[in-house]
């Protein structure tokens, strides 16, 4: 993991001092509410339905056990002993006291953490693959590049007040697990014909009310030019992105307006002036950063542990869990484990302080003291010996962290929705819970197999519903909660935006509509097909027909009938 040196630590400490001073100037009446807003947002502090919400950065999802323990302690001391992991690999605390936020940031700084630029119209937390460094299908470890970008984006003087938020994701694997095309910039690590390492650069992706997948702006960018090239893109965006209409301010709208060829031409023109300047990254810096992500001391082990294989045969519950929650590791005898934060009765992505401590203990005992957050809102222990899996499972089970549903219907991505979020049109967590209730038979879930179901409480799409096989979106009709359903979206290399199946549904209808969609799949699938494959083969119509069969749809939904104040976001 990246460890701060004195300079990194000093910068973060100075940030705490700056923020403390801003809050006290605000309380003294010297900084108005409007003047404070962008400043506090760039320190992760929102004002939400019930009061403040603090979003803590977890750079590219990497956490040390000691940091997770600190989060547990903070959540107990300053909040309601629960945290929420987001699709951007961050953690949100929903009940902090405004006056205590400087103290929380100081606590975070003591373990090399912060809330820098987790909101606001600036470059946000860099996200990446939760299997970085251990995935068998990986070209190289993306984390040194993520850290380079973290440092470059931290307090970038030119790009602190962009037209809108700016999200960057990095992938280095054959299968994209970081949804890079749903980001303002997506970076795909690739080799050119000479074996030089660099990036395929995507630009202009984003979800929200205008979902668009990123387009290739450059097929190959040698890695040493990464920062000057991003400076060129950001400068264009900063100067020419729209500022007159917040809904049209993301870079995707600029890219769309210019067309990707013209956008690319303008980037190249700007870049030609910056290229080979002082921000050219020398190999020595890549080596220094890579040194922070050296592999842990993996033992030499047989590829298959006989004891592990025997336990799979004899313990059915364990075998179920292994099938869904244990993943391949590039080193023989090791595996990665996903700890599901999608148990029934718990809001997706929520974790209690006791669970945080338990995971920290597990990480120290079984996985070299490190934990990762996945954008699907689960936790990953990346370096577990096969032979330890059974013991790890038993302990994790006692903390309700072993729901064997990773990649299944109930592994839902879900935003906090109307329970907590001031922008929501509808609640989202009760829908997630209703899905759990309806699909409570694990055998049935395993039979349905790989599928994604994501839920957002409004058009802002924090729950990634656009890129789900089944997406659920809260809409507001005459002050009632309704839900619009999309199907056919997916993440990964074949990323796609789902299509709306028709008028929206009442909350009570949603589980049975999902059941109808699943039924069409089960009736039509071939042996090897996943939900998405069948859908692509037979088309959307049979699903549509079944979803509305016997339903009266005379009242039609109007999406976003109430324009929401999104200045806060």
């Amino acid at each position, binding site marked *: 993991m990246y*460890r*701060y*040196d*004195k*300079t990194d*630590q*000093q*910068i973060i400490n*100075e*940030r705490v*001092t*700056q923020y403390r*001073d*801003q809050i006290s100037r605000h309380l003294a009446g*010297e*900084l108005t509410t409007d*003047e404070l807003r*962008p*400043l506090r947002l760039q320190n992760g502090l929102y004002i939400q339905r019930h009061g403040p919400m603090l979003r803590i950065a977890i750079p590219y999802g990497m956490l040390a056990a000691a940091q997770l323990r600190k989060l547990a302690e903070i959540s107990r001391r300053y909040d309601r002993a629960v945290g929420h992991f987001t699709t951007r690999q961050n953690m949100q605390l929903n009940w902090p006291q405004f006056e205590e936020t400087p103290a929380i940031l100081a606590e975070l700084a003591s373990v090399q953490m912060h809330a820098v630029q987790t909101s606001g*119209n600036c470059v946000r937390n860099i996200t990446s693959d939760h299997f970085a460094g251990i995935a068998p299908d990986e070209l190289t470890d993306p984390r040194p590049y993520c850290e*380079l970008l973290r*440092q*470059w984006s*931290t*307090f*970038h*003087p*030119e*790009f*602190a*007040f*962009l037209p809108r938020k700016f999200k960057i994701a990095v992938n280095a694997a054959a299968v994209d697990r970081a949804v890079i095309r749903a980001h303002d910039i997506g970076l795909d690590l690739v080799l050119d014909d000479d074996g030089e390492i660099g990036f395929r650069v995507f630009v202009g992706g984003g979800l929200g009310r205008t979902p668009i997948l990123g387009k290739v702006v450059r097929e190959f960018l040698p890695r040493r030019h990464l*920062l000057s090239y991003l400076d060129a893109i950001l*400068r264009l965006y*900063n*100067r020419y992105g729209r*500022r007159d209409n917040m809904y049209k301010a993301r870079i995707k709208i600029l890219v769309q307006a210019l067309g990707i060829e013209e956008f690319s031409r303008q980037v190249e023109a700007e870049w030609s*002036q910056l290229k080979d*300047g*002082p*921000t050219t*990254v*020398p190999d020595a*810096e890549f080596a*220094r950063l890579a040194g*922070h992500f050296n592999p842990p001391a993996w033992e030499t082990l047989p590829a298959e542990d006989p004891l592990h294989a025997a336990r799979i045969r004899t313990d059915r519950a364990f075998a179920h869990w292994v099938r869904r929650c244990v993943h391949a590791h590039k080193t023989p005898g090791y595996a990665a484990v996903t700890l599901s934060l999608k148990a029934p009765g718990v809001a997706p992505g929520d974790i209690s302080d006791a669970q945080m401590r338990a995971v920290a203990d597990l990480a120290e005992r079984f996985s070299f003291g490190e934990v990762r957050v996945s954008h699907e809102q689960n936790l990953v222990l990346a370096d577990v010996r096969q032979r330890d899996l059974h013991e790890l499972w038993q302990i994790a089970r006692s903390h309700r962290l072993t729901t064997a549903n990773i990649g299944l219907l109930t592994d839902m991505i879900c935003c906090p929705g109307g329970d907590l979020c001031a922008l929501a049109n509808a609640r989202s967590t009760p829908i997630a819970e209703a899905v759990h209730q309806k699909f409570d038979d694990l055998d049935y879930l395993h039979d349905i197999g790989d599928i994604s179901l994501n839920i957002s409480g409004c058009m802002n799409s924090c729950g990634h519903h656009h890129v789900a096989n089944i997406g659920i979106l809260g809409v507001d009709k005459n002050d009632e909660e309704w839900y619009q359903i999309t199907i056919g979206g997916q993440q990964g290399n074949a990323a796609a935006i789902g299509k709306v199946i028709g008028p929206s549904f009442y909350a009570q209808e949603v589980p049975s509509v999902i059941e109808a969609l699943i039924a069409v799949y089960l009736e039509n699938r071939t042996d090897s097909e996943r939900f998405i494959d069948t859908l692509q083969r037979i088309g959307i119509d049979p699903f549509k027909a079944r979803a509305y069969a016997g339903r009266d749809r005379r009242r039609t939904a109007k999406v976003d009938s109430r324009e929401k104040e999104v200045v806060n976001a």
Partner: protein
Amino acid sequence: MPRIIKNRQIVEDDWQVLALAAGETPDTVPLPAAPVLLPLSVWQARRDEIIARAAPLGVWLDSHEGPEALAGDIDRFTVIGVNFPKFTDGRSYSSARLLRERYGYGGEIRALGDVLQDQLFYMQRCGIDAYALRADKDMEKALAGLSVFSEAYQAAVDQPQPLFQRRPVQEPT
């Protein structure tokens, strides 16, 4: 006399800023006596007349205007203003950097408009060296805004080498 922050100090300053009022046009607006920061449109409409005045020259760029418009004339100006209509409008950070780094401008760059303490550090990094702080704010206190951080990661005008080119070799903490 009005005061501004310049080179990290509070100084008296007699430059005026001309802004076109409703109904005024660049071609006909009366030019105040120097020293004055003129809108770009006035400079463009009456370049020769302004040069002939032989006084220290000043111009200001609004946030949607770029330094490209001044390219051939950069060295004529004693002061170039960059406007921040709202402090959340970040375009003038790019303008300032371009003036320094692309057009080699060595004179004063002055932040105008919604100029507040908490943006001064970034402005300074982008090459702005004078700040017409918003009138209702305390200038003495605002000076602290220039010294919030003792180090920075990126290359910028105040420090052309990024931290990775300068980082002392040391053990992680």
